[in-house]
C-alpha cells in the first residue's frame, strides 16, 4: 500500500492546490452524501481515471487489498447483524454470540453497497495521499491558521515515517527471532500490542521533535509571509469551474433526494434522471480531464 506522495509530471500535479482540493472534494462528496451504489461506482471510476491520467495509478491501486478486506468485512458483518429484507437466503439458530441469524439478499446487497461506499471514500483519500503534495497544502494553509497547518504538516509527514518505522521494527524483531505473525488471529493481534505501543511512542516523539524544530525556526511567533506562492492558470479556472459545478450538482441532487436507493424491505431503485445525470457527469468530466491531461503532456 503506497501512502507517500509521488512527484510526477502531469496536469493534475501542476494545478493550484486549491484546484486539487476541489477535484478531490467534489469526488469525495459523491459517496459521502449518497448510499446509492451508483454514486460510489461513479466516484471510484472518476478517481481511477484521474489517477491514471496523473501517472499515479499503480500507487493508487496498491490500496485494493485493503479495500477488498473492508468490502468483504462489510458484507460479512451485515449478513450477520441485519435481518432486514424480504428475500431470505438462510436462517439458522443457535449460533454462538449471534444466536439466531437470518441472511437476506437485501442485507447482503446493503453490505456490499456500504463496502463499496467506504472503499470509494478510502480510494479518494488514497489518491489524495499519493498525488497531492503535502508541502503545497501546508504552504497554502499556514498563513491563516498556525494550529491547523501544524497538524496537517505533522500528519502528512508522519504517516510515511511511521510506515517506515513499522517496517524497520518488524525487520528488527524478525532479526532476533520474534515472529509477530505466529499463532492464530487473536495471538497475532496480541503479538502486535507492544509494536503498536512502540509506534505510538515513536509517533509522539517525532511530533515533539518536529514541533521543537519548527519553534526553533520561529514558527508561531507572529504573522508570516509567503515566499513560495502559487498562481492560478487558465487550466485551474476551467477545473475549478467544472468540479465546483459538479460539487454543487451533487449536493443539490442529494438534498432533493433525487439519488435515492432503497435496500429494505426489497431493493428499489428510486433514483431520478437528474441523479443518474450527476453520476455520469463526474465520469465524463474525469474522462475529459484525462484527455486534456494527455494533450498537455504531448504539447510539452
Amino acid at each position, binding site marked *: 500500500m503506497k501512502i507517500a506522495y509521488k512527484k510526477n509530471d502531469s496536469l493534475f500535479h501542476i494545478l493550484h492546490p486549491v484546484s486539487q482540493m476541489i477535484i478531490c472534494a467534489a469526488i469525495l462528496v459523491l459517496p459521502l452524501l449518497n448510499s446509492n451504489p451508483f454514486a460510489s461506482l461513479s466516484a471510484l471510476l472518476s478517481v481511477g481515471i484521474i489517477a491514471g491520467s496523473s501517472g499515479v495509478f499503480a500507487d493508487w491501486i496498491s490500496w485494493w487489498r485493503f479495500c477488498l478486506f473492508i468490502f468483504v468485512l462489510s458484507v460479512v458483518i451485515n449478513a450477520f447483524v441485519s435481518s432486514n429484507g424480504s428475500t431470505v437466503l438462510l436462517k439458522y439458530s443457535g449460533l454462538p454470540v449471534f444466536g439466531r441469524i437470518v441472511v437476506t439478499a437485501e442485507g447482503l446487497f446493503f453490505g456490499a453497497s456500504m463496502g463499496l461506499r467506504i472503499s470509494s471514500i478510502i480510494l479518494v483519500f488514497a489518491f489524495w495521499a499519493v498525488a497531492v503534495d503535502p508541502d503545497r497544502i501546508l504552504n497554502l494553509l499556514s498563513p491563516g491558521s498556525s494550529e491547523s497547518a501544524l497538524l496537517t504538516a505533522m500528519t502528512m509527514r508522519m504517516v510515511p515515517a511511521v510506515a517506515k518505522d513499522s517496517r524497520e521494527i518488524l525487520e528488527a524483531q524478525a*532479526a532476533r527471532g520474534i515472529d509477530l505473525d505466529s499463532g492464530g488471529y487473536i495471538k497475532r493481534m496480541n503479538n502486535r500490542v507492544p509494536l503498536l505501543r512502540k509506534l505510538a511512542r515513536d509517533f509522539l516523539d517525532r511530533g515533539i521533535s518536529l514541533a521543537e524544530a519548527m519553534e526553533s*525556526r520561529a514558527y508561531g511567533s*507572529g504573522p508570516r509571509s509567503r515566499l513560495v506562492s502559487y498562481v492560478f492558470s487558465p487550466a485551474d479556472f476551467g477545473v475549478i469551474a467544472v468540479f465546483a459545478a459538479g460539487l454543487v450538482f451533487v449536493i443539490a441532487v442529494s438534498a432533493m433526494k433525487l439519488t435515492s436507493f432503497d435496500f429494505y424491505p426489497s431493493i428499489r431503485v428510486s433514483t431520478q434522471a437528474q441523479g443518474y445525470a450527476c453520476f455520469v457527469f463526474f465520469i465524463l468530466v474525469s474522462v475529459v480531464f484525462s484527455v486534456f491531461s494527455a494533450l498537455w503532456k504531448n504539447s510539452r
Partner: protein
Amino acid sequence: MEKFPLVEIEDLNYTYPGCGEPALRDICLKVLPGEFMLIAGLTGSGKSTLCRAVNGLVPHFYGGKISGNVRVKGISTLEASVGELARYVGLVFQDPEAQLVFEDPEREIAFGLENLAIEPIRGIKRIEEVFSCLRLASLRDRRVTDLSGGEKQKIALASVLVMQPEVIVLDEPTSQLDPVSAEDFLVTLKSLNSELGISVILAEHRLERCFHLADKIVVLHGGRVVFSGTAEDIAKTDHAVGMRLLPPISRLFLEAGYTEIPLNVKEGRMILSGIDGIPNRHKLERPDYSHTGMIGKQEKNSSKAFAEKITERDAAVKVENLWHSYGDGNPSLKGVDADFGFGEVVAIVGENGSGKTTLVKNITGILKPSKGRVILYGRDIAEMNRREIAALCGMVMQNPESHLISKTPEEELRLTCKSAGFSEKETEERVSKTLSTLDIESLRSTPVEEISCGQRELVAIGSVVVRDPDLLILDEPTRGLDSSVKERIASLLARRKSQGKTTIVVTHDLEFVAEFSDRVIMLAEGRIIAQGEMREVLSDSLFYTTQYNRCFRGFASGVVTKADALKVLKEFA
C-alpha cells in the same frame, strides 16, 4: 580590550520536569563573535540541554526549573521567546529526519524566513544565496525523502543559515552520518565560521574530525563544565574525561610520552617528519598481498576469485554469487561471493549505498536473494524457516530503537527468550548473564525512555545476544557512541571470538575495525572490491583506513592499529 560576548551564560542550573537530578549545574561560559566552540562530553553529560538553553527551548519548550542567566546579544533567553531568539540563534538538531518540515528543499529553506515575515523580494535573494553558498543547487528538484543523511543535514543547516543568525548551535549534527558526509558537513561549517564570521557552538562526542576546528573546547561531565580551554590545552591536561575525548592520534602521542601533541593527522605527520631516523630507517614498502584476497576493482569476477581461494577452508557462512534488487529493478548487490569463518570477526566497510546492509539482511534471511544463495552452517537459507534461522543467527539493526518494544531492558531480553522457548530458569540465567556482560545490570528495570542512546544500543545488542547466536551481525554498532560504550561492544566481540562464534560488523568506524576485526570486506556499488586480512586491506587503502595508518604512511609501513603506531613511536621517542 575585553570583547563583548555574543552568548553569555552565568551560573546556569537546569532540571527537567519530573527529574530529581539537574541536567546542567553552575554553567558559566562566554562565546565571542566569530568564535568556534566545541562542547564535548560523554553521553548524558548535558550537551544537548546546553544547546537548547542557548536558543531558549530550555526552558520555554521543555519547562522545568532554571536558575542563572543565558544572554544572547544581551537579550535574556528567559525573557525572550524562542521565536524572538531565532533571529540570533539557529539550532541544527541531531537527527536530520526529525527537523525537516517540508519535502521540497526550497520550501524547507524558505520556512524560517516566512516565519520571520521576511518579504518575498528579500527572502528569495537569501534563499538563492544559501543555495549557492552551500552548493545545494543539485538538490533543488529532489525530495527530502530521497536525500542522503548528509544532504538532509546540509538542508537543515541551510534552513537555519538563511535566517542569518549570529550564532549557529549544532547538537551532534554528524552522529548519524557516515565519515565522508560528516567530513563534508564539518568542512562546510568551518568555512561558514571563517568566511562569514558566524559563531558556532558544536556539541559532539566523536571529536577526531572536529577537534582541530575549534577555537575553544568545553568539556561537560555530569552537567558541569570540567574543562574549558583550547585544543592544545586539553591535550596537555591530565583530565580523565578530556583524555577519553581526545582524537586517537592525540592519545597515541600522549601515551608514547611525547610532549608535542598533534590534534590531527597533518600535525602528526609534521611531528614525525621532525623525528630523526624515521623516514630513513623505515623505507616505504608496498606489502605483498599475493597470498591474501586483496583484489583490484578492475579484476573481472573479483570476489569470485577470492571465494575460490578459500573453498578449502571451513566457513560458518558462505555467500555465493549473491544478487539483490529492490523494487526499482537496480541491483544493490551484484554477484557477491564471500565466506565467514568460525570464530572470525569480519568487518564490512564501504560508502553509504554500497550494499553493506543489503548483504547482511540477505544473510539473515530478512531479504531474499534475487539470485545466488546463502549457506548458513551448511544449509541453504532458502530452505530454512524464520525460527531455524533465528536459532543460528541474530542481527542488531542500524537503528537500535527498532529493537526496543518492551518497557524495560529486562522485559526486552525476556521477550527474546520467550520467543526462543527457553524455560523460566534458563531465561533468568541468560538475562542476568547478558545484562552483566554488557554492564547494564543497573538498568535492568529502568524504563527504556529514560536511558541514554549508548545504553539503548547496548540493550538492543543484549536483546539479540541473550539468545547466544552462532552468528551475530551488528549493523553500525558504534555510530554516534562514545568510547565507553565501544569498549563494552569490543569486549563482547572478544568473548564471542574466544567461544568460536562468528561476528559480522558493518561499520564506518575504521579505528574499531582495526582493533577488533580479523578480516575486512570492502564493498562499492554492490560489488566486493577488496577482501582479506584486516591489516592488508586497511594498509593498502587511502581513505578507508585508520588515522594511525594515514599518519605513518611514508614513515613506516604496515602501521594500522594503535599498538603498531605505539611501537614505532616508542622506538624513536
